[in-house]
């Protein structure tokens, strides 16, 4: 068993863990981030995509609202390459309580969220998809944020400063010496290999799994699980984020992200951090609610549905034991177990929003540094991260890939036609894994492979062929890799099998079963390593 030593071990490669890695690196602390799967496979890859202005919380949770507007501005400044400046609208219709807008405006004013009143005509001129029945509408500085780009940005910047990150490494035990946590045992989730990491302090940034990980040290952190479903529509429909102007309820928000428009969400109390069910009533509810503000959208093409689990944490002393779902405050908690439980070397951070991940990381890193006796202050808000070369410093824009393709900046065969990915890009993405195993689903996360309307119907087999050629895979291995990818894509379409997507799936089925006979090709004796890791899901569709 190999052993490694670091100053701080961060568990959880979501937005919070990645921001913490970057934060500690800037303070000169040697930290290592691990995730049991890939980055963004937890809540951070299953969220709605909204860089909150805080407007969503202005009606009831001013603390979160304030955090959001402040961090919204910070993230725009430090990770511009992951943010699309869509702006947001809050739209009230005759179906909504008439007294709410006034209350909401008051909340916005208190939280410092600029809310600019628009006429219904102005709003419809900006977003022609909106309903004609608008009773009030305000513009707020919402945005959309690509968690994948942001997290990779944090990790890359941290690596430049001496930090490191490992994926597919699950923490299976926390090492205790007396009343201190001194490291962890990791298990490689693809090869099963175990290793030990010694650390002066461990930061538990595992979102909904925070309770389970704390349990490994025998500590009790009670995280509530709140499941939410989302549906990606084939096209953008709106280019501004549209929120219902009413007390928070199911199906309130439409977020244009990348090529799709994500509708959501629901709030269902559940008992597991990875309960990713999407129930039929959720799909109907979300479509019906979206249709109120964007008439016709429920007849549009729904590409994929998925769910994420919010970690909701209520400090025990708050005495709100009965609060559930949307009633629980969306702010976050940093638990210094040295103070709370007398166990040194462990800090837990959970709850919060993706929008507030930097602030969460700051407060968590403060607690870690306090334990380590390090006084360097947080500086993550001070300057922009180095901008990944690929984005050329521009804000995220829907038409980036089309622009590059049309300007000859993306030569080579077009492999994934829907999301515009070329053969050289695919080959480069495979090469980036070096000798590490790589599944087609990893390439999906890297490039958006197979995330368009045909859901890998056409590109899956092409990409599998390229992967096979580059890696020199045996046929059986390539077949298994393709099978796993196709199954995974199918999973997200299953809740939406009517109309367009049913037709598409039937065509895909004809391609994969009838033409290629994928279900009859031999794939025995293939190591687990090449198939997609279990339990993953799409980042935005």
């Amino acid at each position: 068993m190999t052993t490694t030593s670091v100053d701080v071990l961060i568990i959880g490669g979501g937005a919070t863990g990645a921001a913490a890695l970057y934060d500690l690196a800037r303070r000169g602390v040697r930290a290592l981030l691990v995730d049991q799967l890939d980055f963004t496979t937890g809540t951070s890859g299953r969220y709605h995509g909204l860089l909150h202005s805080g407007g969503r919380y202005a009606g009831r949770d001013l603390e979160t609202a304030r955090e959001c507007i402040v961090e919204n501005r910070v993230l725009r400044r430090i990770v511009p390459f992951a943010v699309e400046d869509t702006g947001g609208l809050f739209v009230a219709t005759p179906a909504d309580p008439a007294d709410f807008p006034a209350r909401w405006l008051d909340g916005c004013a208190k939280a410092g969220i600029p809310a600019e009143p628009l006429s219904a005509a102005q709003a419809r001129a900006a977003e022609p998809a909106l309903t004609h029945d608008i009773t009030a509408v305000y513009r707020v500085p919402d945005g959309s944020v690509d968690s994948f780009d942001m997290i990779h940005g944090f990790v890359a910047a941290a690596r430049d400063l001496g930090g490191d990150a490992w994926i597919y490494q699950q923490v299976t035990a926390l090492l205790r010496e007396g009343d201190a946590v001194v490291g962890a045992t990791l298990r490689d989730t693809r090869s099963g290999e175990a290793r030990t990491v010694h650390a002066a302090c461990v930061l538990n940034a595992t979102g909904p799994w925070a309770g389970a990980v704390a349990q490994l040290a025998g500590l009790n952190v009670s995280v509530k699980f709140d499941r939410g479903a989302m549906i990606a529509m084939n096209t953008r429909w709106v280019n501004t984020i549209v929120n219902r102007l009413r007390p928070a309820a199911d199906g309130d928000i439409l977020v244009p992200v990348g090529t799709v428009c994500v509708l959501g969400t629901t709030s269902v109390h559940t008992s597991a951090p990875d309960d990713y069910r999407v129930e039929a009533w959720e799909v109907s509810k979300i479509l019906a609610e979206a249709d109120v503000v964007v008439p016709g959208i429920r007849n549009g093409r729904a590409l994929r549905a998925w769910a994420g689990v919010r970690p909701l944490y209520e400090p025990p002393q708050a005495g709100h034991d009965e609060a559930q779902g949307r009633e629980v405050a969306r702010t976050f908690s940093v638990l210094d177990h040295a103070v709370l439980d007398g166990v040194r070397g462990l800090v837990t951070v959970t709850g919060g929003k993706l929008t507030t991940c930097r602030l969460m990381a700051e407060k968590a890193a403060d607690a870690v540094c306090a334990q380590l006796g390090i006084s360097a202050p947080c500086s993550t808000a001070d300057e922009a991260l180095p901008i990944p070369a690929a984005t050329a410093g521009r804000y995220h824009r829907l038409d980036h890939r089309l622009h590059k393709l049309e300007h000859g900046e993306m030569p080579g065969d077009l492999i994934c036609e829907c999301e515009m990915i070329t053969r050289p890009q695919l080959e480069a993405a495979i090469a980036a894994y070096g000798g590490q195993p790589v599944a087609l689903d990893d390439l999906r996360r890297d490039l958006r492979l197979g995330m368009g309307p045909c859901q890998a119907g056409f590109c899956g087999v092409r990409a599998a062929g390229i992967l096979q050629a580059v890696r020199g895979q045996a046929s059986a291995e390539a077949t298994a890799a393709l099978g796993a990818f196709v199954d995974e894509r199918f999973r997200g379409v299953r809740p939406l099998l009517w109309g367009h997507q049913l037709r598409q799936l039937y065509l895909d089925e004809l391609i994969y079963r009838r033409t290629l006979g994928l279900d009859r090709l031999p794939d025995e004796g293939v190591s687990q390593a090449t198939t997609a890791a279990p339990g993953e899901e799409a980042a935005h569709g």
Partner: protein
Amino acid sequence: MTDHSTTLIDLTPFTADHCLKCNICTSACPVAPVTPLFPGPKTVGPQAQRLRLPGEPSPDHSIDYCSGCGICTQVCPHGVRVMEINTQAKAVMTQTHGMSPRNWFLSRNELWGRLGTPFAPLANFGVGNRWLRLIVEKTFKVSARGPLPGWAGYTFRGWWKREIKRRPRPQSAPDAQRVVYFHGCSTNTYEPHIGKLAVAVLEHIGLHVEIPPQTCCGLPAQSNGDFKAARRYARTNIESLVEYARRGIPIVGTSASCITAIKGDYQHVLGLDDEDALLVAANTYDFMEFLARLDHEGRLPRDFQPIEAELPYHAPCQLKAHGMGRPALDVLDLIPGLRCWEIDADCCGIAGTYGYKAEKREIAEAVGRPIAEQVSAAGARLVVCDTETCRWQITSLTGAKTVHPVELVALAYGLTVDRYTPPLRAGTAAHAAVGGL
């Protein structure tokens, strides 16, 4: 429609939502296989549409190579209006990059038609002069090989004004016996004989012909991405035609492409979907479609003299876009002795103004090659076709003479007009000219 029940999903850009990526359109597109510069309808249409930001500058380039022939829209089994998506994207591209003087020039066919008329001999010398054309190609990028028509030296409208003075028509006809003739720019200034024959045929049928003021249909401006001008033209026509449409008087035209514009493009490309526009569209017919309908209702006189000939017929893409079959063939079939067969080719390549552009001339010729091959294999010296630019292109590709089907109908009815020589002779088999001319 300003009706609130219409939602985005009914509008052209959103039809991209229906695309299953089946590639049927790409395999039918006549341009994609002849040039590497055009990635095909699926790519520039529904696929690129998902990545276009409304109200933002256009990232497009390759879409410029879409000829707008509309075959993709016809073949798509899922209702994606691919050509319409492409044309709208071209308009955004034109807005972004501005319009070249060449494209502006090509979009103003109506203007050049009128300006050239008084100077017909000189103008005709110009378009016929190889050296001049080469200079124009070099400086202006209008292909020297693009088949330009000659000016007739008089206009159809001018002729009509004189004609009704010479032989005033009784004004008493009930609306059910009236018809509006939409001549289009080309008939007005280059081929007035087609309009004159159309009037003769309609009057032979017993209809009272009205020719209200009208302008260019707007299609040339539309396909060059100048939607502002196209909408201006369209509005002028709609305003002039709508009163007839309200009275249920059919509007018929001999240029299948102008008629496509009025019937479909005004709504689906230019977004003119108000009540007037839709009413005019619903009352507009292609000339041969109109004759076929009359025949269906038993109102088309069958007093045809035989024409002994076997002629190839090309259905222009624009006509196919009407989704009405091949009414020209249905009607020509009624003429004893006349056997017309359809050329097995989608597009002649000219696609309005496309084939006149120097950088696209070669593509246009490659697209039209199957027509040339079949015409030459049949040894035909006369080809029938409903749209003017297609006729000129076919003549330039094959050397064969081309006619509008109305010319054959008029011939069979024994009708002729001044300053016109029929392409064939009708009558007994003695004059038979199988294979043309």
